[in-house]
């Protein structure tokens, strides 16, 4: 049902010089501590990472709860910040597609889609035989997802021992990791324009609209990058 060898190759992406384990640990430990602060109990904190597994959305949820936002407002705010997962899925899953593979694998494993797993899969899929790429993805997903859940638990349990300076230190690790991965991914003109354009437009549009910034910045910079890439023939 699942090609074990390929699955393990995916799982092993947790090791080595490109390991996402440290940044994942850093940000989910910080999240665990934050959720405890926001009044979550141990089970609720773990459930949040288990069922949501998308850090920016979980941060939005915690902060919205602290200011007393309604459930509908939380839903909309999270949907807007996590909408990026839609184009991310569409730019990854066709690469993993194979007729011999059952559909449920795709519909269930889309839950593993997060920035970390996406960047790893984009970086490594070419080395895997087309037929088994979805198993490679499930391996990556199981590794990153379970790390995130365990680290949320650890963060919650160690919250009392983490001071503010340590939490600030932990919080920078993830954006630094993502930036390095993205710079590593800038292999052609259109991706490079997309990354540079998005980095600039994201904060600029945020000044106008905090909620719609990601969506608009992504659409504008992405479309510009696509058109410029087409024009230059890459």
């Amino acid at each position, binding site marked *: 049902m699942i090609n074990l060898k390929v699955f393990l190759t995916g799982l092993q992406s947790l090791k080595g010089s490109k390991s996402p384990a440290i940044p994942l640990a850093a940000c989910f430990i910080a999240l665990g501590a934050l959720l405890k602060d926001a009044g979550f109990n141990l089970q609720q904190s773990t459930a949040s990472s288990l069922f949501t597994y998308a850090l920016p959305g979980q*941060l939005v*949820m915690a902060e919205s709860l602290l200011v007393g936002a309604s459930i509908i407002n939380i839903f909309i705010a999270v949907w807007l910040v996590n909408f990026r997962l839609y184009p991310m899925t569409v730019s990854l899953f066709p690469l993993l597609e194979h007729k011999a593979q059952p559909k449920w694998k795709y519909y269930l494993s889309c839950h593993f889609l997060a920035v970390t797993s996406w960047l790893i899969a984009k970086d490594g899929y070419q080395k895997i035989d087309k037929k088994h790429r979805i198993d490679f993805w499930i391996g990556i997903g199981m590794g990153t997802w379970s790390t995130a859940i365990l680290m949320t638990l650890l963060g919650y349990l160690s919250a009392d021992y983490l001071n503010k300076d340590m939490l600030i230190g932990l919080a920078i690790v993830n954006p630094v990791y993502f930036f390095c991965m993205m710079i590593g991914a800038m292999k052609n003109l259109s991706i490079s324009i997309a990354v540079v354009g998005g980095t600039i437009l*994201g904060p600029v549009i945020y000044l106008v609209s905090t909620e719609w910034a990601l969506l608009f910045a992504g659409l504008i910079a992405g479309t510009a990058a696509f058109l410029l890439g087409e024009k230059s023939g890459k």
Partner: protein
Amino acid sequence: MESNQIIILAIIATSLATFISRFMGAITSKKVSVKSKLFQWFNCVAYSTLAALLGRMIIFPAGVLADSELIIRIVVLIICIIIFILTKKNLVIPTIFSAIFLSLLTNL
């Protein structure tokens, strides 16, 4: 409503709001060919949206990171990117250093 119920509802709302985008993506993917222009466009939009999120995380961070100085965050990021390039794309070294640098510079 007591706070426990609100938290549980918030977890459900957050998880649903997140899963919708993933699931819609998986459905759309079945109709998008890797060789199509549409796929290329989605690819560009995905990278831009991600970059926009990262730009925002550094310039206008949420949570505890907001308590650090902007200029220090940018300096740390640039130093770490240089380390990443110098170490031939090792990710472990710059990520460990980022936390240490930020703590050191914040407490100077």
